[in-house]
Protein backbone atom coordinates (compact mmCIF):
# COMPACT_ATOMS: atom_id res chain seq x y z
CA UNK A 1 0.00 0.00 0.00
CA UNK A 2 1.83 3.07 -1.23
CA UNK A 3 -0.53 5.59 0.28
CA UNK A 4 -0.84 3.93 3.68
CA UNK A 5 1.24 6.65 5.35
CA UNK A 6 -1.21 9.34 4.28
CA UNK A 7 -4.39 7.38 4.97
CA UNK A 8 -4.68 8.05 8.72
CA UNK A 9 -4.68 11.75 7.83
CA UNK A 10 -6.87 11.60 4.75
CA UNK A 11 -9.54 9.25 6.07
CA UNK A 12 -10.80 11.55 8.87
CA UNK A 13 -10.69 14.54 6.52
CA UNK A 14 -12.81 12.80 3.89
CA UNK A 15 -14.96 11.33 6.67
CA UNK A 16 -15.59 14.78 8.12
CA UNK A 17 -16.82 16.09 4.79
CA UNK A 18 -18.94 12.99 4.18
CA UNK A 19 -20.60 13.53 7.56
CA UNK A 20 -21.46 17.09 6.55
CA UNK A 21 -23.65 15.70 3.78
CA UNK A 22 -25.81 13.70 6.18
CA UNK A 23 -27.49 16.90 7.34
CA UNK A 24 -29.28 16.47 10.65
CA UNK A 25 -30.02 12.77 10.33
CA UNK A 26 -28.42 11.72 13.62
CA UNK A 27 -28.88 7.96 13.12
CA UNK A 28 -27.20 8.04 9.73
CA UNK A 29 -24.40 10.18 11.16
CA UNK A 30 -23.79 7.71 13.97
CA UNK A 31 -23.71 4.68 11.67
CA UNK A 32 -21.46 6.40 9.16
CA UNK A 33 -19.16 7.68 11.89
CA UNK A 34 -18.80 4.25 13.50
CA UNK A 35 -18.04 2.76 10.09
CA UNK A 36 -15.42 5.46 9.50
CA UNK A 37 -13.86 4.78 12.90
CA UNK A 38 -13.65 1.06 12.13
CA UNK A 39 -11.95 1.94 8.86
CA UNK A 40 -9.52 4.19 10.71
CA UNK A 41 -8.84 1.42 13.20
CA UNK A 42 -7.92 -0.96 10.39
CA UNK A 43 -5.72 1.66 8.74
CA UNK A 44 -3.99 2.46 12.06
CA UNK A 45 -3.40 -1.23 12.67
CA UNK A 46 -1.89 -1.65 9.21
CA UNK A 47 0.25 1.45 9.75
CA UNK A 48 1.57 0.02 13.01
CA UNK A 49 2.26 -3.29 11.29
CA UNK A 50 4.26 -1.45 8.63
CA UNK A 51 6.14 0.57 11.23
CA UNK A 52 7.02 -2.58 13.21
CA UNK A 53 9.45 -3.55 10.47
CA UNK A 54 11.63 -0.69 11.68
CA UNK A 55 11.57 1.14 8.35
CA UNK A 56 10.53 4.76 7.96
CA UNK A 57 7.60 5.05 5.53
CA UNK A 58 7.65 8.36 3.71
CA UNK A 59 4.87 10.06 1.84
CA UNK A 60 5.93 13.02 -0.26
CA UNK A 61 2.97 15.27 -0.87
CA UNK A 62 2.73 16.25 -4.52
CA UNK A 63 5.83 14.12 -5.08
CA UNK A 64 8.07 17.02 -4.08
CA UNK A 65 11.46 15.88 -2.86
CA UNK A 66 12.22 16.71 0.75
CA UNK A 67 13.40 19.16 2.02
CA UNK A 68 11.49 21.24 -0.56
CA UNK A 69 8.12 19.59 -0.20
CA UNK A 70 6.08 18.54 2.79
CA UNK A 71 6.71 15.00 3.85
CA UNK A 72 4.75 12.65 6.10
CA UNK A 73 6.90 10.24 8.07
CA UNK A 74 5.55 7.09 9.64
CA UNK A 75 7.77 5.49 12.26
CA UNK A 76 7.09 3.38 15.34
CA UNK A 77 6.22 6.31 17.61
CA UNK A 78 3.85 7.93 15.09
CA UNK A 79 2.11 4.64 14.36
CA UNK A 80 1.71 3.89 18.05
CA UNK A 81 0.18 7.30 18.76
CA UNK A 82 -2.15 7.13 15.76
CA UNK A 83 -3.46 3.78 16.96
CA UNK A 84 -3.74 5.09 20.52
CA UNK A 85 -5.74 8.10 19.31
CA UNK A 86 -8.07 5.85 17.35
CA UNK A 87 -8.72 3.54 20.30
CA UNK A 88 -9.38 6.46 22.64
CA UNK A 89 -11.61 8.18 20.09
CA UNK A 90 -13.60 4.99 19.57
CA UNK A 91 -14.33 4.78 23.30
CA UNK A 92 -15.25 8.47 23.49
CA UNK A 93 -17.48 8.21 20.43
CA UNK A 94 -19.38 5.19 21.75
CA UNK A 95 -19.93 7.06 25.01
CA UNK A 96 -21.10 10.20 23.18
CA UNK A 97 -23.61 8.12 21.23
CA UNK A 98 -24.76 6.22 24.33
CA UNK A 99 -25.43 9.42 26.26
CA UNK A 100 -26.83 11.43 23.33
CA UNK A 101 -24.09 14.04 23.75
CA UNK A 102 -23.82 14.22 19.98
CA UNK A 103 -27.45 15.26 19.75
CA UNK A 104 -27.07 18.40 21.89
CA UNK A 105 -25.87 20.53 19.02
CA UNK A 106 -25.09 20.27 15.33
CA UNK A 107 -21.93 18.93 13.75
CA UNK A 108 -20.53 16.98 16.71
CA UNK A 109 -19.49 14.12 14.44
CA UNK A 110 -17.95 16.39 11.80
CA UNK A 111 -15.84 18.21 14.40
CA UNK A 112 -14.86 14.88 15.95
CA UNK A 113 -13.50 13.63 12.64
CA UNK A 114 -11.69 16.90 11.95
CA UNK A 115 -10.14 16.68 15.40
CA UNK A 116 -8.78 13.25 14.47
CA UNK A 117 -7.56 14.71 11.17
CA UNK A 118 -5.55 17.32 13.06
CA UNK A 119 -4.24 14.84 15.63
CA UNK A 120 -3.12 12.22 13.11
CA UNK A 121 -1.59 14.91 10.91
CA UNK A 122 0.41 16.29 13.83
CA UNK A 123 1.66 12.78 14.65
CA UNK A 124 2.72 12.02 11.10
CA UNK A 125 4.13 15.20 9.65
CA UNK A 126 7.86 15.67 9.19
CA UNK A 127 7.70 19.40 8.55
CA UNK A 128 7.68 22.07 11.23
CA UNK A 129 5.34 24.51 9.50
CA UNK A 130 3.01 21.68 8.59
CA UNK A 131 3.00 20.77 12.28
CA UNK A 132 1.80 24.31 12.98
CA UNK A 133 -1.01 23.92 10.44
CA UNK A 134 -2.13 20.60 11.93
CA UNK A 135 -1.97 22.13 15.41
CA UNK A 136 -4.35 24.83 14.19
CA UNK A 137 -6.67 22.23 12.65
CA UNK A 138 -6.87 20.20 15.83
CA UNK A 139 -7.26 23.33 17.95
CA UNK A 140 -10.05 24.76 15.82
CA UNK A 141 -11.90 21.45 15.98
CA UNK A 142 -11.29 21.28 19.72
CA UNK A 143 -12.75 24.78 20.20
CA UNK A 144 -15.94 23.62 18.55
CA UNK A 145 -16.05 20.39 20.54
CA UNK A 146 -15.32 22.11 23.85
CA UNK A 147 -18.20 24.52 23.31
CA UNK A 148 -20.51 21.74 22.10
CA UNK A 149 -23.80 21.88 23.97
CA UNK A 150 -23.29 25.40 25.28
CA UNK A 151 -23.66 26.80 28.78
CA UNK A 152 -22.25 29.78 30.63
CA UNK A 153 -19.33 28.14 32.42
CA UNK A 154 -18.40 26.25 29.28
CA UNK A 155 -18.34 29.47 27.26
CA UNK A 156 -16.10 31.14 29.83
CA UNK A 157 -13.69 28.19 29.98
CA UNK A 158 -13.78 28.05 26.17
CA UNK A 159 -12.89 31.72 25.84
CA UNK A 160 -9.81 31.31 28.03
CA UNK A 161 -8.80 28.16 26.17
CA UNK A 162 -9.14 29.83 22.76
CA UNK A 163 -7.24 32.97 23.75
CA UNK A 164 -4.29 31.14 25.32
CA UNK A 165 -4.02 28.86 22.31
CA UNK A 166 -4.14 31.79 19.89
CA UNK A 167 -1.25 33.38 21.78
CA UNK A 168 0.50 30.01 21.58
CA UNK A 169 -0.01 29.95 17.80
CA UNK A 170 1.55 33.40 17.48
CA UNK A 171 4.57 32.32 19.52
CA UNK A 172 4.79 29.17 17.37
CA UNK A 173 5.03 31.33 14.24
CA UNK A 174 7.71 33.54 15.83
CA UNK A 175 9.73 30.45 16.72
CA UNK A 176 9.26 28.80 13.31
CA UNK A 177 10.16 32.08 11.55
CA UNK A 178 13.35 32.47 13.57
CA UNK A 179 14.39 28.86 12.97
CA UNK A 180 13.72 29.25 9.25
CA UNK A 181 15.68 32.48 9.15
CA UNK A 182 18.65 30.85 10.86
CA UNK A 183 18.62 27.35 9.39
CA UNK A 184 16.97 28.03 6.04
CA UNK A 185 14.69 25.00 6.14
CA UNK A 186 11.47 23.76 7.73
CA UNK A 187 11.92 20.04 7.27
CA UNK A 188 12.67 18.58 10.70
CA UNK A 189 15.28 16.15 9.39
CA UNK A 190 16.97 18.86 7.35
CA UNK A 191 16.97 21.20 10.35
CA UNK A 192 18.62 18.52 12.46
CA UNK A 193 21.27 18.07 9.80
CA UNK A 194 21.99 21.77 9.56
CA UNK A 195 22.25 22.17 13.31
CA UNK A 196 25.57 20.31 13.06
CA UNK A 197 27.06 23.05 10.87
CA UNK A 198 25.57 25.97 12.76
CA UNK A 199 28.07 28.84 13.16
CA UNK A 200 28.86 29.71 16.77
CA UNK A 201 27.50 33.27 16.50
CA UNK A 202 24.02 31.96 15.50
CA UNK A 203 23.73 29.56 18.39
CA UNK A 204 22.17 32.06 20.78
CA UNK A 205 19.33 32.93 18.42
CA UNK A 206 18.61 29.29 17.57
CA UNK A 207 18.63 28.39 21.26
CA UNK A 208 16.13 31.20 21.92
CA UNK A 209 13.88 29.97 19.10
CA UNK A 210 14.14 26.40 20.37
CA UNK A 211 13.14 27.40 23.87
CA UNK A 212 10.32 29.57 22.51
CA UNK A 213 9.11 26.46 20.71
CA UNK A 214 9.29 24.65 24.05
CA UNK A 215 6.99 27.31 25.52
CA UNK A 216 4.50 26.68 22.70
CA UNK A 217 4.54 22.92 23.20
CA UNK A 218 4.44 23.58 26.93
CA UNK A 219 1.13 25.39 26.50
CA UNK A 220 -0.27 22.38 24.64
CA UNK A 221 1.16 19.91 27.14
CA UNK A 222 0.07 22.06 30.13
CA UNK A 223 3.52 22.57 31.62
CA UNK A 224 4.02 24.89 34.61
CA UNK A 225 3.35 27.87 34.51
CA UNK A 226 1.22 27.40 31.40
CA UNK A 227 -1.24 24.82 32.72
CA UNK A 228 -3.86 27.15 34.19
CA UNK A 229 -6.22 26.74 31.23
CA UNK A 230 -6.40 22.97 31.59
CA UNK A 231 -8.49 22.30 34.73
CA UNK A 232 -11.35 24.62 33.74
CA UNK A 233 -11.40 23.56 30.10
CA UNK A 234 -11.30 19.83 30.84
CA UNK A 235 -13.78 20.05 33.69
CA UNK A 236 -16.30 22.02 31.62
CA UNK A 237 -16.01 20.12 28.32
CA UNK A 238 -18.65 17.46 27.54
CA UNK A 239 -17.43 14.13 28.95
CA UNK A 240 -16.80 12.43 25.62
CA UNK A 241 -14.84 15.47 24.45
CA UNK A 242 -12.84 15.64 27.69
CA UNK A 243 -11.96 11.96 27.20
CA UNK A 244 -10.75 12.69 23.68
CA UNK A 245 -8.80 15.69 25.01
CA UNK A 246 -6.75 13.24 27.11
CA UNK A 247 -4.66 12.81 23.95
CA UNK A 248 -4.40 16.58 23.33
CA UNK A 249 -1.83 17.21 26.04
CA UNK A 250 0.12 14.24 24.70
CA UNK A 251 0.39 16.01 21.33
CA UNK A 252 2.47 18.68 23.05
CA UNK A 253 4.68 15.99 24.59
CA UNK A 254 4.99 14.21 21.24
CA UNK A 255 6.03 17.49 19.59
CA UNK A 256 8.73 17.99 22.23
CA UNK A 257 10.02 14.43 21.71
CA UNK A 258 9.93 14.73 17.94
CA UNK A 259 11.06 18.31 17.27
CA UNK A 260 13.38 18.96 20.18
CA UNK A 261 14.61 15.39 20.38
CA UNK A 262 15.55 15.45 16.68
CA UNK A 263 16.63 19.03 16.00
CA UNK A 264 18.31 19.53 19.36
CA UNK A 265 19.60 15.97 19.46
CA UNK A 266 23.17 14.78 19.84
CA UNK A 267 24.35 16.21 16.52
CA UNK A 268 23.46 19.78 17.62
CA UNK A 269 26.81 20.25 19.38
CA UNK A 270 26.67 22.97 22.02
CA UNK A 271 22.87 23.14 21.78
CA UNK A 272 22.29 19.41 22.27
CA UNK A 273 19.38 18.72 24.63
CA UNK A 274 19.00 22.33 25.81
CA UNK A 275 15.39 21.52 26.67
CA UNK A 276 16.00 18.59 29.02
CA UNK A 277 16.91 20.53 32.17
CA UNK A 278 13.90 22.79 31.73
CA UNK A 279 11.54 19.86 31.20
CA UNK A 280 12.82 18.09 34.28
CA UNK A 281 12.58 21.13 36.54
CA UNK A 282 9.23 22.38 35.26
CA UNK A 283 7.85 18.84 35.24
CA UNK A 284 8.65 18.49 38.93
CA UNK A 285 6.98 21.81 39.77
CA UNK A 286 3.95 20.88 37.65
CA UNK A 287 3.65 17.52 39.38
CA UNK A 288 3.77 19.06 42.86
CA UNK A 289 1.13 21.66 41.95
CA UNK A 290 -1.04 19.06 40.20
CA UNK A 291 -1.03 16.89 43.33
CA UNK A 292 -2.10 19.91 45.40
CA UNK A 293 -4.79 20.63 42.81
CA UNK A 294 -6.06 17.04 43.09
CA UNK A 295 -6.35 17.51 46.85
CA UNK A 296 -8.02 20.92 46.62
CA UNK A 297 -10.60 20.10 43.91
CA UNK A 298 -14.23 20.73 44.72
CA UNK A 299 -15.67 18.48 42.06
CA UNK A 300 -14.82 15.10 40.56
CA UNK A 301 -14.29 16.35 37.03
CA UNK A 302 -11.94 19.08 38.19
CA UNK A 303 -10.08 16.43 40.17
CA UNK A 304 -9.74 14.22 37.10
CA UNK A 305 -8.43 17.22 35.14
CA UNK A 306 -5.71 17.67 37.77
CA UNK A 307 -4.96 13.92 37.60
CA UNK A 308 -4.41 14.34 33.85
CA UNK A 309 -2.10 17.23 34.65
CA UNK A 310 -0.19 15.01 37.10
CA UNK A 311 0.25 12.32 34.45
CA UNK A 312 1.53 14.92 31.98
CA UNK A 313 3.95 16.22 34.61
CA UNK A 314 5.25 12.68 35.25
CA UNK A 315 5.83 12.33 31.52
CA UNK A 316 7.62 15.70 31.38
CA UNK A 317 9.97 14.47 34.11
CA UNK A 318 10.57 11.20 32.26
CA UNK A 319 11.34 13.00 29.00
CA UNK A 320 13.51 15.50 30.86
CA UNK A 321 15.62 12.67 32.31
CA UNK A 322 16.86 12.24 28.77
CA UNK A 323 17.99 8.64 28.81
CA UNK A 324 16.86 5.80 26.59
CA UNK A 325 15.45 3.94 29.59
CA UNK A 326 13.43 6.95 30.76
CA UNK A 327 12.07 7.61 27.28
CA UNK A 328 10.96 4.00 26.89
CA UNK A 329 9.28 4.19 30.31
CA UNK A 330 7.56 7.45 29.34
CA UNK A 331 6.07 5.83 26.21
CA UNK A 332 4.62 3.03 28.35
CA UNK A 333 3.22 5.54 30.82
CA UNK A 334 1.87 7.71 27.99
CA UNK A 335 -0.26 4.89 26.56
CA UNK A 336 -1.50 3.95 30.02
CA UNK A 337 -2.31 7.47 31.20
CA UNK A 338 -4.12 8.47 27.99
CA UNK A 339 -6.53 5.53 28.01
CA UNK A 340 -7.12 5.55 31.77
CA UNK A 341 -7.65 9.33 31.88
CA UNK A 342 -10.20 8.94 29.07
CA UNK A 343 -11.99 6.21 31.05
CA UNK A 344 -11.92 8.36 34.17
CA UNK A 345 -13.53 11.37 32.47
CA UNK A 346 -16.31 9.13 31.18
CA UNK A 347 -16.83 7.56 34.61
CA UNK A 348 -16.91 11.00 36.27
CA UNK A 349 -19.72 11.91 33.88
CA UNK A 350 -21.63 8.70 34.65
CA UNK A 351 -21.36 9.45 38.38
CA UNK A 352 -22.30 13.08 37.82
CA UNK A 353 -25.43 12.12 35.87
CA UNK A 354 -26.49 9.52 38.45
CA UNK A 355 -26.19 11.98 41.30
CA UNK A 356 -28.76 14.26 39.64
CA UNK A 357 -28.75 17.64 41.41
CA UNK A 358 -25.49 17.04 43.31
CA UNK A 359 -23.65 16.49 40.01
CA UNK A 360 -19.97 15.89 40.63
CA UNK A 361 -19.54 18.18 43.63
CA UNK A 362 -17.92 16.72 46.71
CA UNK A 363 -20.96 16.67 48.97
CA UNK A 364 -22.66 13.52 50.24
CA UNK A 365 -25.26 12.52 47.70
CA UNK A 366 -27.95 9.97 46.99
CA UNK A 367 -27.34 6.24 46.58
CA UNK A 368 -26.43 5.71 42.94
CA UNK A 369 -28.14 3.10 40.81
CA UNK A 370 -25.68 0.19 40.23
CA UNK A 371 -23.55 1.56 43.06
CA UNK A 372 -21.60 -1.71 43.38
CA UNK A 373 -20.59 -1.74 39.72
CA UNK A 374 -19.84 1.98 39.46
CA UNK A 375 -17.96 1.99 42.77
CA UNK A 376 -15.82 -1.00 41.75
CA UNK A 377 -14.98 0.57 38.41
CA UNK A 378 -14.11 3.81 40.21
CA UNK A 379 -11.78 1.93 42.55
CA UNK A 380 -10.02 0.15 39.68
CA UNK A 381 -9.54 3.36 37.70
CA UNK A 382 -8.34 5.21 40.79
CA UNK A 383 -5.80 2.44 41.44
CA UNK A 384 -4.55 2.62 37.87
CA UNK A 385 -4.49 6.42 37.78
CA UNK A 386 -2.65 6.97 41.06
CA UNK A 387 -0.12 4.28 40.24
CA UNK A 388 -0.83 1.61 42.84
CA UNK A 389 -0.15 -2.08 42.13
CA UNK A 390 -1.28 -4.25 40.45
CA UNK A 391 -2.44 -2.14 37.48
CA UNK A 392 -0.45 -0.47 34.73
CA UNK A 393 0.11 2.92 36.42
CA UNK A 394 2.31 1.22 38.99
CA UNK A 395 4.57 -0.40 36.40
CA UNK A 396 4.89 2.82 34.44
CA UNK A 397 5.91 4.73 37.54
CA UNK A 398 8.33 2.02 38.67
CA UNK A 399 10.07 2.15 35.30
CA UNK A 400 10.28 5.95 35.41
CA UNK A 401 11.59 5.89 39.00
CA UNK A 402 14.14 3.26 38.06
CA UNK A 403 15.35 5.42 35.21
CA UNK A 404 15.48 8.44 37.55
CA UNK A 405 17.92 6.69 39.89
CA UNK A 406 20.70 7.23 37.36
CA UNK A 407 20.19 11.00 37.38
CA UNK A 408 22.08 13.46 39.59
CA UNK A 409 18.89 14.85 41.08
CA UNK A 410 17.45 11.41 41.79
CA UNK A 411 16.55 12.21 45.41
CA UNK A 412 14.40 15.21 44.47
CA UNK A 413 12.76 13.44 41.51
CA UNK A 414 11.91 10.29 43.45
CA UNK A 415 10.62 12.36 46.37
CA UNK A 416 8.36 14.52 44.19
CA UNK A 417 6.90 11.54 42.32
CA UNK A 418 6.31 9.46 45.45
CA UNK A 419 4.93 12.25 47.65
CA UNK A 420 2.59 13.51 44.93
CA UNK A 421 1.52 9.90 44.34
CA UNK A 422 0.70 9.57 48.04
CA UNK A 423 -1.29 12.82 48.00
CA UNK A 424 -3.27 11.58 45.00
CA UNK A 425 -3.97 8.21 46.65
CA UNK A 426 -5.28 9.99 49.76
CA UNK A 427 -7.49 12.30 47.67
CA UNK A 428 -8.90 9.47 45.60
CA UNK A 429 -9.64 7.42 48.73
CA UNK A 430 -11.41 10.43 50.19
CA UNK A 431 -13.37 10.97 46.97
CA UNK A 432 -14.38 7.33 46.78
CA UNK A 433 -15.56 7.15 50.38
CA UNK A 434 -17.49 10.41 49.99
CA UNK A 435 -19.20 9.39 46.76
CA UNK A 436 -19.99 5.78 47.62
CA UNK A 437 -19.87 5.22 51.40
CA UNK A 438 -21.49 8.45 52.54
CA UNK A 439 -24.26 8.13 49.97
CA UNK A 440 -27.65 7.93 51.67
CA UNK A 441 -31.27 7.95 50.54
CA UNK A 442 -31.97 11.00 52.71
CA UNK A 443 -29.64 13.08 50.52
CA UNK A 444 -32.13 13.33 47.71
CA UNK A 445 -33.25 11.54 44.59
CA UNK A 446 -30.73 9.71 42.42
CA UNK A 447 -30.74 10.25 38.69
CA UNK A 448 -31.57 7.56 36.12
CA UNK A 449 -29.34 4.51 35.86
CA UNK A 450 -26.55 4.87 33.33
CA UNK A 451 -26.95 3.16 29.98
CA UNK A 452 -25.14 -0.20 29.65
CA UNK A 453 -23.40 1.01 26.49
CA UNK A 454 -21.93 3.99 28.38
CA UNK A 455 -20.56 1.72 31.11
CA UNK A 456 -19.25 -0.63 28.41
CA UNK A 457 -17.26 2.25 26.86
CA UNK A 458 -15.62 2.96 30.24
CA UNK A 459 -14.86 -0.72 30.80
CA UNK A 460 -13.40 -1.06 27.31
CA UNK A 461 -10.95 1.78 27.95
CA UNK A 462 -10.22 0.40 31.41
CA UNK A 463 -9.19 -3.02 30.03
CA UNK A 464 -6.01 -1.26 28.89
CA UNK A 465 -4.80 -1.28 32.51
CA UNK A 466 -4.72 -5.09 33.03
CA UNK A 467 -3.72 -5.69 29.40
CA UNK A 468 -0.70 -3.41 29.74
CA UNK A 469 0.33 -5.43 32.80
CA UNK A 470 -0.25 -8.87 31.27
CA UNK A 471 1.55 -7.92 28.05
CA UNK A 472 4.10 -5.71 29.76
CA UNK A 473 7.06 -7.72 28.46
CA UNK A 474 6.28 -7.52 24.71
CA UNK A 475 5.07 -3.93 25.09
CA UNK A 476 8.19 -2.74 26.89
CA UNK A 477 10.25 -4.50 24.23
CA UNK A 478 8.29 -2.46 21.70
CA UNK A 479 8.82 0.84 23.56
CA UNK A 480 12.54 0.07 23.82
CA UNK A 481 12.90 -0.48 20.08
CA UNK A 482 10.80 2.66 19.50
CA UNK A 483 13.14 4.63 21.72
CA UNK A 484 16.16 3.23 19.90
CA UNK A 485 14.60 4.37 16.63
CA UNK A 486 13.84 7.81 18.10
CA UNK A 487 17.34 8.37 19.42
CA UNK A 488 18.92 7.33 16.12
CA UNK A 489 18.62 10.82 14.62
CA UNK A 490 21.11 10.03 11.87
CA UNK A 491 18.93 7.23 10.49
CA UNK A 492 15.90 9.56 10.55
CA UNK A 493 17.79 12.25 8.64
CA UNK A 494 19.03 9.76 6.06
CA UNK A 495 15.63 8.12 5.65
CA UNK A 496 13.83 11.42 5.08
CA UNK A 497 16.39 13.19 2.92
CA UNK A 498 17.93 10.46 0.80
CA UNK A 499 15.07 8.28 -0.40
CA UNK A 500 12.88 8.88 -3.37
CA UNK A 501 9.89 7.82 -1.29
CA UNK A 502 7.13 5.37 -1.97
CA UNK A 503 5.51 7.11 -4.89
CA UNK A 504 6.43 6.04 -8.41
Amino acid at each position, binding site marked *: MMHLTALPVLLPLIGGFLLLFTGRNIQLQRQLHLALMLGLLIVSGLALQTALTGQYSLYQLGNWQPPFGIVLVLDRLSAMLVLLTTLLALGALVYAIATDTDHQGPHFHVLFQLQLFGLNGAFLTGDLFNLFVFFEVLLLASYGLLLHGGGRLRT*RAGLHYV*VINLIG*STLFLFAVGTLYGMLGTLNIADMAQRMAQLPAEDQGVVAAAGLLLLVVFGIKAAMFPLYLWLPAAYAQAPAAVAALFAIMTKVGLYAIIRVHGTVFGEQAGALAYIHSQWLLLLGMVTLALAALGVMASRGLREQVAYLVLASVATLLIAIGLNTAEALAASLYYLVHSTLIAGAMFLLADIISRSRAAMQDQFIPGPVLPNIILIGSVFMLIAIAMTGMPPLSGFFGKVMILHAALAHDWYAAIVAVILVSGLLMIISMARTGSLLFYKAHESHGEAGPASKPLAVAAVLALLTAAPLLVVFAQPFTAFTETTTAQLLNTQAYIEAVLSTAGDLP
Partner: protein
Amino acid sequence: MEWLIALAIGVMTACGVFLTLRPHTFSVVLGLTLLAYAVNVFLFAMGRLTIGQPVVIDATATGYADPLPQALVLTAIVIAFGMTAFLIVLALKARSELGNDHVDGLHISNKKNGARR
Protein backbone atom coordinates in the same frame (compact mmCIF):
# COMPACT_ATOMS: atom_id res chain seq x y z
CA MET B 1 14.87 49.67 5.82
CA GLU B 2 15.81 47.16 8.53
CA TRP B 3 15.20 49.57 11.37
CA LEU B 4 11.78 50.52 9.99
CA ILE B 5 10.65 46.88 9.75
CA ALA B 6 12.13 46.05 13.14
CA LEU B 7 10.42 49.07 14.68
CA ALA B 8 7.08 48.16 13.09
CA ILE B 9 7.27 44.58 14.38
CA GLY B 10 8.35 45.76 17.81
CA VAL B 11 5.62 48.38 18.17
CA MET B 12 2.91 46.05 16.91
CA THR B 13 4.03 43.25 19.25
CA ALA B 14 4.18 45.62 22.22
CA CYS B 15 0.71 47.00 21.48
CA GLY B 16 -0.58 43.48 20.91
CA VAL B 17 0.78 42.21 24.22
CA PHE B 18 -0.59 45.24 26.06
CA LEU B 19 -4.06 44.87 24.54
CA THR B 20 -4.10 41.10 25.10
CA LEU B 21 -3.57 41.70 28.80
CA ARG B 22 -6.58 44.04 29.03
CA PRO B 23 -9.65 42.71 30.87
CA HIS B 24 -12.20 43.10 28.06
CA THR B 25 -12.65 40.63 25.24
CA PHE B 26 -12.78 43.35 22.60
CA SER B 27 -9.28 44.59 23.52
CA VAL B 28 -8.06 41.01 23.63
CA VAL B 29 -9.35 40.37 20.11
CA LEU B 30 -7.64 43.54 18.86
CA GLY B 31 -4.45 42.57 20.67
CA LEU B 32 -4.38 39.09 19.13
CA THR B 33 -4.99 40.62 15.70
CA LEU B 34 -2.06 43.00 16.16
CA LEU B 35 0.14 40.10 17.29
CA ALA B 36 -0.86 38.19 14.16
CA TYR B 37 0.11 41.22 12.00
CA ALA B 38 3.44 41.48 13.78
CA VAL B 39 4.23 37.83 13.26
CA ASN B 40 3.31 38.03 9.58
CA VAL B 41 5.75 40.89 8.98
CA PHE B 42 8.30 39.00 11.05
CA LEU B 43 7.93 35.91 8.84
CA PHE B 44 8.49 38.08 5.77
CA ALA B 45 11.64 39.51 7.27
CA MET B 46 12.95 36.01 7.94
CA GLY B 47 13.28 35.48 4.18
CA ARG B 48 15.78 38.41 4.31
CA LEU B 49 14.85 41.88 3.09
CA THR B 50 15.54 42.35 -0.60
CA ILE B 51 14.34 44.88 -3.15
CA GLY B 52 13.51 44.30 -6.80
CA GLN B 53 14.38 40.60 -6.84
CA PRO B 54 12.11 38.20 -8.73
CA VAL B 55 10.43 35.37 -6.83
CA VAL B 56 9.96 32.96 -9.71
CA ILE B 57 12.41 32.03 -12.41
CA ASP B 58 13.65 34.92 -14.53
CA ALA B 59 16.45 34.47 -17.08
CA THR B 60 17.93 37.92 -16.47
CA ALA B 61 17.84 37.75 -12.69
CA THR B 62 21.04 37.91 -10.67
CA GLY B 63 19.37 36.67 -7.48
CA TYR B 64 16.01 35.67 -6.11
CA ALA B 65 13.82 36.73 -3.25
CA ASP B 66 12.95 33.84 -0.92
CA PRO B 67 9.48 32.64 -1.98
CA LEU B 68 8.91 30.35 1.00
CA PRO B 69 8.12 33.04 3.63
CA GLN B 70 5.44 34.37 1.29
CA ALA B 71 3.75 30.98 1.24
CA LEU B 72 4.08 30.78 5.02
CA VAL B 73 2.64 34.25 5.50
CA LEU B 74 -0.27 33.45 3.21
CA THR B 75 -1.07 30.35 5.29
CA ALA B 76 -0.61 32.28 8.53
CA ILE B 77 -2.92 35.07 7.33
CA VAL B 78 -5.67 32.61 6.39
CA ILE B 79 -5.39 30.81 9.73
CA ALA B 80 -5.27 34.06 11.72
CA PHE B 81 -8.27 35.36 9.82
CA GLY B 82 -10.31 32.26 10.56
CA MET B 83 -9.25 32.23 14.20
CA THR B 84 -10.10 35.92 14.65
CA ALA B 85 -13.53 35.40 13.12
CA PHE B 86 -14.12 32.47 15.47
CA LEU B 87 -12.89 34.44 18.47
CA ILE B 88 -15.18 37.37 17.69
CA VAL B 89 -18.18 35.05 17.48
CA LEU B 90 -17.14 33.41 20.74
CA ALA B 91 -16.66 36.82 22.40
CA LEU B 92 -20.15 37.83 21.28
CA LYS B 93 -21.54 34.56 22.64
CA ALA B 94 -19.75 35.16 25.93
CA ARG B 95 -21.06 38.74 25.96
CA SER B 96 -24.65 37.54 25.60
CA GLU B 97 -24.35 34.60 27.99
CA LEU B 98 -22.25 36.21 30.73
CA GLY B 99 -23.84 39.63 30.40
CA ASN B 100 -20.66 41.66 29.88
CA ASP B 101 -17.45 41.45 27.92
CA HIS B 102 -15.06 40.88 30.81
CA VAL B 103 -12.81 37.92 30.01
CA ASP B 104 -13.73 36.25 33.32
CA GLY B 105 -17.39 37.30 33.29
CA LEU B 106 -16.79 38.28 36.94
CA HIS B 107 -19.09 41.24 37.38
CA ILE B 108 -22.15 39.47 36.14
CA SER B 109 -21.78 36.43 38.37
CA ASN B 110 -21.54 38.75 41.41
CA LYS B 111 -24.48 40.83 40.23
CA LYS B 112 -26.59 37.76 39.56
CA ASN B 113 -25.84 36.29 42.96
CA GLY B 114 -26.76 39.63 44.49
CA ALA B 115 -30.03 39.75 42.59
CA ARG B 116 -30.91 36.24 43.75
CA ARG B 117 -30.34 37.12 47.36
